[in-house]
């Protein structure tokens, strides 16, 4: 249920799920229409219907956001947002080294890095435990998939 108070500024008042999701759908639909305009009739029919539908749904959501004003909390607190951002960066880093180092070494590095940042104040003992547990975890995954199930894993300089 959206709510509105007198204190809400005109712009703040419409910052809610319907506005953002509506804009997202509208832009996705418009982008798809733009991208697929030159295809043949049969290939274009289904995406065309969907793109138009997305634009309509998006427009209705935006209009409803403007009519039923009320702000909703959509984004996490600052601390949580920083955590999310560095995690995304860490995963990107993991993927970067994955191709070079191979699955096993890259996964040990990633697991160790994540446990280091998420864990409390590091001591020599805790560092050793984290390194060993990261190595054990990654090796267990490697053994399960590569050796037991014969599932191929990304290869690099090492395993």
């Amino acid at each position, binding site marked *: *249920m*959206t*709510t*509105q*108070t007198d*204190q*809400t500024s005109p712009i703040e*008042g419409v910052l*809610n*799920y*319907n506005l953002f*999701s509506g804009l*997202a*759908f509208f832009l996705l639909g418009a982008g798809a229409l733009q*991208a*697929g305009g030159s*295809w*043949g009739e*049969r*290939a274009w*029919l*289904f*995406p065309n219907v*969907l*793109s138009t539908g*997305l634009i309509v*749904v998006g427009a*209705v959501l935006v209009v*409803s956001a403007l009519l039923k004003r*009320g*702000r*909703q*909390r*959509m984004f996490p*607190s*600052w*601390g*949580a947002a920083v*955590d*999310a951002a560095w*995690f*995304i960066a860490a995963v990107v880093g*993991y*993927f970067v080294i*994955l*191709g070079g180092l191979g*699955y096993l070494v890259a*996964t040990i590095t*990633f*697991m160790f890095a*994540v*446990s280091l940042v*998420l864990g409390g*104040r590091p001591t020599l003992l805790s560092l050793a435990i984290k390194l060993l547990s990261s190595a054990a*975890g*990654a090796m267990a995954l490697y053994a399960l*998939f590569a050796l037991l199930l014969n*599932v*191929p*894993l990304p290869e690099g300089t090492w395993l």
Partner: protein
Amino acid sequence: MIEGLLASLQPMHLLYLLGGVLGGVLVGCLPGLTATMGTALLVPFTFVMEPTAGLVMLGGLYIGAMYGDAIPACLVNIPGTPSSLATSFDGFPMTEKGQGRRALIAACFSSAVGAVVGGVALLLLSPPLAALSLQFGPPEFFWLGILALTIMGSIVGKSFLRGIGAGMFGLLLSTIGVAVSGGETRFTFDQYQLMGGISLPVVLIGLFAIPQLIKLIEGRRTKSSIGTLDREKGVLRKTLPRAANPVNLARSSVLGTVIGILPGAGSPIAALISYNEAKRWSRNKRQFGKGAIEGVVASETANNAAAPASMVPTLTLGVPGSSPSAVILGALLLHGLRPGGELFQTNPDIVYAFIWAMIIGGLLVFVVGVLFSPLLVSVVAVPVQILVPAIAGLAVVGSFAIRNNIFDVYLMFIIGVAGYLLTKVGVPVAPVALGIILGPIVESGLDTALSMAQGSSYMEVFVLRPISAGLILLTVASIVWTVLSRRAERRRQLAGEDDPDEPEDPADTGEEPDVPEPPRGEPTGQATVEETDQSEVRSR
């Protein structure tokens, strides 16, 4: 039939069956590894076995995987396969409430019931069920896909429109790659890796694993693990009476069996429709999405009933009802067994042993599920700093293993971040996943039906066929029911009749509750969270 039962009960065959079930549970519970991949990996090994043993093991693996996929859906909110999408709606909230073991036991119990009912239907009703499946043509599949998407839009999230928009976005994503007709490439942006479309496991892992990991990271300061360990005694005794609602089990089994026999429709649709019906007829419908055991039971019963049912057209017509049954069909052919009515006459011992193996496999799933649930549920107490990188490592394997392509890993991550952002603006990701699953069925149904309409009229092809008309009516009824029930809910909320014991749980839908705008100068809940975060950072 009796010979088949005796053959499947031979100690050696039982051992193969148990091996198949255990392998299936393992394959199902690892996101990215599907029942199709598991059966495909097993087929070469069955060459060296006698046909009965090989097929018994394949049947066990299929049934085991259909239960195994519920394990990550319940414990970490990541469906192991598309079939357990609906299981996660209530399974994961149960885990968050410290009832993870109950969720697992309910899942294995209902999986067993579903597999037994589907197996018995396969045993007794194959010919008439196969005839029913032939009544479904392209227009019917088109409408079935639309019905499933409408249902998904209405049961997930708070806004029907956002749910429908998400489903349409999923359908649009399914069009990436070579077109169903005409052979043109669509939305590939000159990336040859996209020519074959987006792989389904890549989408599932991305949409469910990555947002879940980011949420765990976001909430780590207040919650160091997913939930608390379920240490209560007598969980089995307490769970079974609640799970064993005969009406829910019967309805879900029948829906799973009927939808399972339709080639291509498969268990995700069966689970979803069954979940929706369980919610519609439940006296506790407001608990759905917040940890209702009936939701887990409905979804798991239906998707496990659909697995043996999908073998009906496979064995009787040679038309695979699902991807794993297509692989099993290949195994049958490799062993020199030709599907069709004759198969039941010429090799009854092998065919009936295979069918009995699926039924007995269902019972074994229950035993395996109950025995392993205390061990499996311990994952909820694993600290976030260990669980998150481990799941990320699994996600990489799952997305890479499908096509041995690092591009799929990158794509999984991009989809995951997009999914996370969508949940932040109140768009549920489950309809996106379902849209991608149903896209090929809906588009090819539409395309072929349009071709059919060239010889007659659109009305005749799309509306006047009896099953199509029924599906259209169901779709309209579903929309009307959703609009009316939501309006009634809103009226109840405005009247202040909200049950204080049933708080809205944002984790259900990926949405956060509406926050009333506070007067200026007053502290908000968000500010309090931020203050807590900063004080924790300072103390470190």
